[in-house]
Structures are given as C-alpha cells and as structure tokens.
C-alpha cells in the first residue's frame, strides 16, 4: 500500500502562533519607530493622510526618493533635442490684474519674498535678471503622459533665497501665482536644487504667456503641475499647515499628490 503524506499544512502549532504574534508585534512596533524617524528627517510630505486610502504609496515615493536620491540632477538635453512643437495646457482667462501688467510689458511685475527670511524683498523682473542666471535644456513632463523639451533660462531659486537669507527653522518655500487659488510649495531639497528656476525666458526668447511668462517656476525633477505659472510671491515657512487646507499645495485639494516626482 502506498504511503500518502500526512494532512498537516493547515494545522498551526502553538509555537508557530506565538512566533507569528511576536513577529507581528515587532512589525507594528518597527513601523511606529520608522514613522517617527521619517517625520524627524523630513520624509513625510505635507499631504500625508490627505489623499485617503490611496495616499500612503505617494508618501513612500517621496520618502524613498528623498532618502536615496536627494541631489540627483534632471537630465539635460542637447540643443537639437529642443521640441519644435511644444505644448502648453491652456489656463483660465487671465485676471484683469494680469492683463494690466501685460499691457505695461510686465515692467511693473513684482516678486515678493517674505516669511522666514532675514531680508524680506520685492524684486522686479530686472532685479531678478541681475542675479546669477542659469540656462538648461530639460523636459517638461505632464502627469497625463505628454512631454516636450525646451531651453529654460532664469534665476535659480537658490540665488533668490540666498539673497533674502533663509532662517534656520525654514522647511518649505511656498509659491503663489497671480491667478487665484494657484499655489504650491517645495521642500528645501528642491528649493535649493540647482535646477529649480524662476524662469523668465524660453528657447532664447522671452517666456511666452502661454508657457507661464513673465515668470514661471520650473522644477524639472517633478511633473509639470509643480511648475506653476505667473509667480508673484514666495513665502518661506516652517509648516504648510496654515495654507489652504494645510496639504502643502492646491493640488492635493483636487486629489493630486503634493510630491510629483513620479
């Protein structure tokens, strides 16, 4: 008679039960410690918990990319890679305030920098252009899937921040469009990243209004929606809780993650 294996796979021994219990307790404890460390080292994005059950994956994206590759540089392309047919999403019709400034050739456009800075300052476009500038050929990548490559010329955000003197307790730089309810923020890693620009020119010409002229944030390591158009104000802050719904930008209020590195 042939022997058949005993029917055991489902029987759980007491030892196995205790080991599993201990492992689960250690796992939960480990997660709690990890969460505390992550908070301390700035690995929790301001919209954590704001995206509901879909959100923890976005927090993982941010934490891992900040832990492993905080200082990598976005790919820069050769001049022949510049897209001949770039595309810009249309924005809402400009406000009267914008149209007035546009009529004056943006001579009266101002960028106000305030918050946790040593010297709150208001810059004209000419002031910004007198600061160190940088030109880079990078890709604009929309979360929808499309993209284009352009040359962006502007003032590195870190040049502006160094000019005003960021205070030690600062953690975020919030930036606001002249258009209502259009604002976002960067952590200091991206705010001081050498490729983060306040762009005022594109492909050797002035930045067209459709592409965000006269002044647009360019954050090439994140998706296009972080590159807000028509910037008039920067605020350096230690917490994003006081702005909007406290999620770090207008995007999470519409269901989109604050961190758009992926």
């Amino acid at each position, binding site marked *: *008679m*042939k022997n*058949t*294996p005993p*029917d055991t*796979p*489902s029987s759980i021994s007491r030892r196995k039960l205790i080991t599993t219990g201990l492992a689960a307790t250690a796992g939960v404890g480990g997660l709690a410690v990890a969460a505390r460390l992550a908070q301390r080292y700035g690995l929790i994005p301001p919209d954590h918990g704001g*995206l*509901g059950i*879909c*959100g*923890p*994956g*976005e927090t*993982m*994206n941010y934490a891992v*990319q900040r832990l*492993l*590759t905080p200082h*990598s*540089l*976005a*790919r820069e*392309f050769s001049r022949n*890679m510049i*897209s001949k*047919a*770039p*595309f810009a*999403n*249309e924005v809402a019709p400009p406000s009267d305030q914008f149209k007035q400034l546009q009529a004056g050739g943006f001579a009266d456009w101002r960028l106000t920098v305030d918050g946790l800075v040593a010297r709150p300052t208001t810059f004209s476009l000419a002031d910004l252009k007198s600061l160190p500038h940088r030109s880079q050929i990078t*890709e604009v*990548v*929309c*979360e*929808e*899937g*499309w*993209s*284009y*490559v352009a040359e962006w010329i502007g003032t590195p955000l870190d040049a502006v921040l160094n000019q005003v003197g960021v205070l030690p307790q600062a953690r975020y730089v919030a930036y606001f469009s002249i258009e209502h309810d259009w604002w976002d923020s960067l952590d200091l890693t991206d705010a001081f990243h050498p490729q983060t620009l306040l762009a005022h020119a594109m492909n050797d010409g002035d930045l067209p209004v459709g592409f965000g002229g006269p002044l647009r944030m360019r954050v*090439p*390591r*994140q*998706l296009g929606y972080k590159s807000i158009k028509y910037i008039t104000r920067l605020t350096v802050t230690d917490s994003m809780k006081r702005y909007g719904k406290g999620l770090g930008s207008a995007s999470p209020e*519409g*269901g*989109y*993650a604050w961190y758009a*590195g*992926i």
Partner: protein
Amino acid sequence: MRSAPAIPAPYLSIPCYSAPVSATVTPLKVATPRHTALVRVTHWLTVISFFALLITGAEIVISHPRFYWGETGNVNMQPLFSLHIASSRDTVPTGYPYVMPDQNGWSRALHFQAAWVAVLTGLVYFIASLVNGHFRKNLVPAPPDRSWTAFRTVIARYLRRAPPIAAEAHSYNVLQRTSYLAVIFVLFPLVILTGLALSPAFNAAFPFVVDAFGGRQSARTLHFFITIFLVLFLIIHVAMIFLAGFIPRMRAMIAGRVVQPRERR
C-alpha cells in the same frame, strides 16, 4: 409487543456495519500539499495589486490616449498610434464630442500604492524562492524537459484537449514553467522599469534606464504593450484554470492542497 425489525440481509455485507472503526481506516480522498504559504500569499497579493494597477493605469491612459516613440510627444506632434476612445482632457483631439471625467488624482495615487505592494511582494517572493529552491525545483524545467520535443508533446496534448496528466496536479509542465519564468523574469521586471522610467525624479537619478528604452515616450509606449502582454497571460492563465478544473486549482492556490481520490492498488 413487536420485535425490533431485522436488518435487511444486503446491509449486513457492508463492512462498516459489521466491523469496528480501526486506526488503519483511511479516508476515500486524500489531501496532499501543493503550494507553499509563501507562493499562495504572494500570488494573491500580486492579483490584487495587478488589478489595481490595470484599472488605474487605464484611467491614466484615458487622459492622453496617444502613444509616441522617442523622448517627447504631445498633441502638437505625430503619434505612433492613438486609441480610439474619448479622453478625460479637452486638449486631446479624439473625434468624440464629449470629455470623460478626470480620474487621474486617485488613479495615480492608487497606481503607486499598488506598485509598492507589487514590487515588495515580488521582492519577498524572489528572495525566498532563490533561497528555498522554488525556482530551481518548481519553475526551471527539469533536464529531460529541456527540448523542443518536450514542448511539442505538451502543446499536442493541449491541442487534443487531453485531460491534464496526474503529475500536473502537483507540478508544472514545461510549457507552464517557461511561461511563468517569462512573466517573472522578463515581463514583470520590464513593466516595473518602464514604469519607473516615467518618473522625472527616477530619471534624474538613473538616466540610463530611460535612455535604454529609447526615451521617455518610448518607455511609456512599452509600458502599455507590456501591460497588454500581461493581460494576455492573465486571460490564458485563467482559461487554463477553468479547463484543468476551477475548484481543485483554486483550492490548491488558496488552501494549499490538492484533494484526490485515493489511489487503489
């Protein structure tokens, strides 16, 4: 007073009426181990995350149902091909008079969440299977099966609609092993890498990955086609489960055992 009814004669010949139950009696059916707990748990986590990725991925595609080759692509450029579906953006020319509702916010978040589950599950499965010999024992074809003849034999059996041979209740045939290896070692890594090559931060850190695929839009297009291959695999996989016997195969992947009639000797 009536006497107790007599037991009808035929029943007396049935052993269990006459013989006491002894320890040597074995059940008519036996359950034998099939899939380890690790295989079962990682399998179902993969199923859940795959469906989440598929649905959310489709939602994201709807916002730009055009595909390109190379580094860049947008509605001002010639697509490689377009899906003939409506879009959730009015900037995309689709020929449809309406715009679908935007679902990208939660779709993107859930896509990444499911991707984390899938990748971490895959990592556990991969390391454990290397260590415990699951790949070597159960997935790499045994030496006598590494021939075209072995493939042809299995394919011919499928084409004849022959019932699965007894060994296949406990082991995979060469065609199954090759398919699973292709999914685990080719399609899964490719779908993960082409997905990562869509992340601007990942591309900043590891530019050679997106360059290897021929640019960001090529990576996006490949991500789409690899998904199609994975869905084709899924359809065939599920069809084979039904052909081989849905309940026994599901029981093997859920409870881990194969129940078979006792062999008679």
